[in-house]
C-alpha cells in the first residue's frame, strides 16, 4: 500500500522531470534558431526571426514529447518473445482526447495570432486591409525608422537579368543600392514571366507578376552586401538570375547615385547571356531548346558577376 503510493508519486515526479528537461532543451534549440538564418539586415528580419524562434521552441517541445514517448514504448514495452497475449483493451479516454484537442487548438491560435501581428508590423505590401476598413488592431504604429517619401525604385525583372532604375536621378544599375535605416520603396515589374524578388538577409520575398506593378517596402538596417535571388522559377537560366543589394550610409548612397549618374550607359556582364552564347558555339552541347536570354542590360552602373557578397 505504502509502496504503491510511493511508486505512483515517483512516477509523477519522473514525468514532471522529463517535461522540464523537454522544455529546457526546446528553449535552447529555439535560441539556436537565430544562427540558422543569414544576418539580420532588415527591420523585418528581426520580427521574422523572433517568430521563427517561438515556433521552433514550441515545435521542439511537441516533437521531443511525442517522439520521446514513442521511443520509450519501442524500447521498454516490447512483447517477450513467446508471449502471444494481447495488451490492455483500452479503447479511448474522453478526458485525454479533450485535452489533446483543446490544448493544441489554443497553441495554434496563439501561433496564428503571433504570426498575424508579425505580418501586420512588417507592412511589406502596405496596410493589410482590416485597418484601412476601420478595424482596430493591436499594433497600429508602423515600425519604420524614418519615412522619407521618394519615388519608388523600379525593379525590372526579365529572363534572366535584374535591372534597377532610380527615376529621380535617371540612374540604371544591375546592382540595388539602398540607404541604411530608411524605408525602401520598390516597384516590382516583370517583362516576361513570373520572377521572385528575394533577399534572404532581409527575410522578404515577393513574386513579380507580368502585367502588374507591385509596390513593395522594407527597411534595411545593416550595411553590407547581400544576395538578391530570383525565387520564382523563371525558366532555363533561373538559377543564374542573381544580383546584389548594397546597403550603405545615406552619404555613401548619395555619392554612389551621383557617380552612377555621371557614367554613360554600358552593357553589363550577364551570366545567362554568356552561358547561352557559349553553349550555342559548343557543338557538343547536349541541352534542349531554350528561350533565348535577353541581351545584357545597358546601364549606368554595371556590377561585376565576380563581386562578393556577405
Amino acid at each position, binding site marked *: 500500500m505504502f509502496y504503491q503510493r510511493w511508486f505512483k508519486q515517483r512516477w509523477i515526479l519522473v514525468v514532471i522531470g522529463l517535461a522540464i528537461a523537454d522544455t529546457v532543451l526546446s528553449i535552447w534549440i529555439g535560441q539556436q534558431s537565430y544562427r540558422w*538564418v543569414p544576418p539580420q539586415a532588415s527591420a523585418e528580419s528581426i520580427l521574422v526571426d523572433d517568430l521563427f524562434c517561438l515556433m521552433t521552441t514550441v515545435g521542439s517541445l511537441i516533437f521531443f514529447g511525442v517522439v520521446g514517448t514513442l521511443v520509450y*514504448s519501442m524500447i521498454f514495452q516490447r512483447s517477450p518473445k513467446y508471449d502471444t497475449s494481447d495488451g490492455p483493451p483500452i479503447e*479511448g479516454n474522453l478526458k485525454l482526447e479533450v485535452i*489533446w484537442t483543446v490544448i493544441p487548438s489554443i497553441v*495554434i491560435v496563439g*501561433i496564428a495570432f503571433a504570426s498575424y501581428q508579425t505580418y501586420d508590423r512588417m507592412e511589406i505590401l502596405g496596410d493589410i486591409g482590416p485597418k484601412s476598413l476601420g478595424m482596430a488592431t493591436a499594433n497600429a504604429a508602423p515600425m519604420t525608422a524614418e519615412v522619407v517619401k521618394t519615388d519608388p525604385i523600379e525593379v525590372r525583372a526579365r529572363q534572366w537579368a535584374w535591372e534597377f532604375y532610380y527615376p529621380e536621378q535617371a540612374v540604371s544599375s544591375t546592382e540595388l543600392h539602398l540607404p541604411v535605416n530608411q524605408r525602401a520603396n520598390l516597384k516590382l515589374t516583370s517583362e516576361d514571366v*513570373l520572377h521572385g524578388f528575394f533577399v534572404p538577409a532581409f527575410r522578404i520575398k515577393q513574386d513579380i507578376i507580368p*502585367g502588374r506593378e507591385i509596390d513593395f517596402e522594407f527597411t534595411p538596417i545593416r550595411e553590407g552586401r547581400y544576395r538578391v535571388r530570383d525565387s520564382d522559377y523563371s525558366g*532555363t537560366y533561373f*538559377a543564374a538570375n542573381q544580383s546584389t543589394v548594397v546597403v550603405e550610409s545615406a552619404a555613401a548612397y548619395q555619392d554612389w547615385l551621383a557617380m552612377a549618374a555621371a557614367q554613360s550607359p554600358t552593357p553589363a556582364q550577364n551570366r545567362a547571356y554568356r552561358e547561352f552564347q557559349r553553349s550555342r558555339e559548343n557543338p557538343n552541347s547536349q541541352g534542349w531548346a531554350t528561350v533565348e536570354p535577353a541581351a545584357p542590360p545597358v546601364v549606368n552602373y554595371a556590377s561585376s558577376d565576380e563581386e562578393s557578397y556577405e
Partner: protein
Amino acid sequence: MSNASLEALQPSLQPQPGAPDNWKRFFTFSTDHKVIGIQYIVTAFVFFLFAGLLAMVMRGELLTPEADLVDRTVYNGLFTMHGTLMLFMWTFPMLNGLANYLVPLMIGARDMAFPRLNAAAFWLVPVFGVILTASFFIPGGPSQSGWWAYPPVSLQNPTGNLINGQSMWILAVALSGISSIMGAVNIVTTIFRMRAPGMGWFKMPVFCWTVLAAQLIQLFGLPALTAGAVMLLFDLTVGTSFFNPELGGDPVLYQHFFWFYSHPAVYVIILPIFGVFSEIFPVYSRKPLFGYPVVAVSSLVITGLSGIVWVHHMFASGTPGWMRMLFMFSTMTISVPTGIKVFAWVATVWGGKIRLNTPMLFALGGLIMWVFAGITGIMLASAPFDIHVNNTYFVVGHFHYVIYGAVVMGFYAAIYHWFPKMTGRMYYEGLGKLHFVLTFIGANLNFFPMHPAGLMGMPRRVASYDPEFAFWNVLASLGGFLLGVSTLPFLLNMLSSWARGPEAGDNPWRAIGLEWMVSSPPPHENFDEIPVVVSRPYGYGSDEPLVANASEKE
C-alpha cells in the same frame, strides 16, 4: 447486398490467362479488384524507381555548386518530370492499388462496385505513363516548367512545335485526372453501397474511412485542376489568353486553379497513409486503436478543411495581405484533427505488447518523420515566416518529409504487412529490417539538410547555387544515393519471397479484420459467404468475435 447473388451464380468470366493462379492475369484486362490492385502497385513501383533515378541524377548535379553534370535545360526537365512522375505515376496509382486491393476485403465485398470501370481506370495509367516517358525523346525534351506548370513559363514553347514536352505533359495530367475520377467514383460507391451486413460506419476499419475521405477530395478537387489544364492547353496550342499576360490574361488565376486541387491532393496522398498507420499500430501493439471514432471522423474533418487552405501556396505570390492572413488561419486549423490522430496513435502504442516487425518499424519511422513534417508544416502556414522560406529548399525538405518520410514509409509498411495476404508467402524479416534501416537513415540524410539550406536562402529548382550551400547539398546527395541503394534489399526480398518464400498462412500477424479471415491469397470473389459484422474493428484484448458466424473466426 445485390452483388452477392448475381455474380456468385456465374463462374468467372475471366479468359483463361486470367485464371486466379496464372501470373499472366496481371497483363490482362482483368476485372478482379485484387489483380487490379497488384497491377497498380507494381506499375507504380516501376515508375517510382524511374523517377528516383531522375532524382539521383539531380542530386549528382547538386554535389557541386556549378551547373556541370547536365545542361540547365536537362536539369529543369529532370526536376519537372521527377515531381510529375512521383505524383501521378507513383503515389496516386500506388494508393489506388492499396485501396483497390484492401477496401473490398475489409468491408466484406466480393469486388468493387464497377469492375470494368476499375480496369479501365487502371489501364489509363500505363497510357499516360508512356506519354510522359515519351516526352523525353521528342524535340525540345520534356516539360521544363516544374510540376506546377505555372504560366507564362509553361506557355513559352521554345521549339515552336505543336507537339512539345509541355503539351504532352498537359495531356498526361488530364488523362490522369480522368483515371483518378473514375477510380474515385468507384471507390466511394463501393464504400457507401457494398459494406457487409452489420458493418455500420463505426464498425468500418479506419483505412476505409481515410480512403473515403481522400477519394471525396478527388471528386471535388480534380475538376478544378482539369479545367485549369484545359485552359492552359488552349493558351499553349490555339492562342487563347486565359493566363497569358501579354494578351490580357492573368497568370495568378492559374495558380488558384492549380492549388485548389493540388493542395487537397496532398491530403489525398496522406489520408490513406493515416489509415495504414491506424491499421498497423493496433496489430503490432496488441491494443485497440485509441479513440477509434474520433480518428475515423477526423479524416472527414481534414477533407472539409483541405478545401479552404490552398492560398498558403501563394503567400508570396500576387495575393493581397488580407487573403494571406485569412488562409493562414484556415491552414493552421488543419493541424488540430491531424494532431488528434498523432496523439491517438501514440496512445495506441503506449502500454502495448510491441513487436518490431518490419511493417511496425516502417510505420513508427513514418510516424516520427510525419511529426517532424507536421511541425515544419505549421511553420510554413505562418505567412510572415513562409515569406522567407517560400520557394526555398525548406519547402522541399518539408514536403519530402511528408511524401517520403510519411507516405513512402507508410507504403512500405503496408506492403510488408499485407504481402503475406496478397501472395500467401512470408517475406524475409532480416532483409526487411535492413531495408528499413537504409531507408530511414537515407531519408533523413537526404531531406533534413534541405531545411538549413532553405533557411539560409537557397531557392528550390536551381541547377547551380552559391558555394555557401555546398555542405548541406553534399550531405543531401549522399542521402539520396543511399535511398537509391535502399530499394535493392526491398526488390530482392519481394521477388525471392514471392517466388519461394515460406507459406504464410491466412493470418500470420494474428490480426483482426475481415481480410485476415479469408485464405491467402484470397479466393476469387473473396468470400464464399458474406460475413455478418457484429463488433467494432481492433478488438484486441477482448474476446468479442468480429463476425456473427463464429465458425469463420479462426
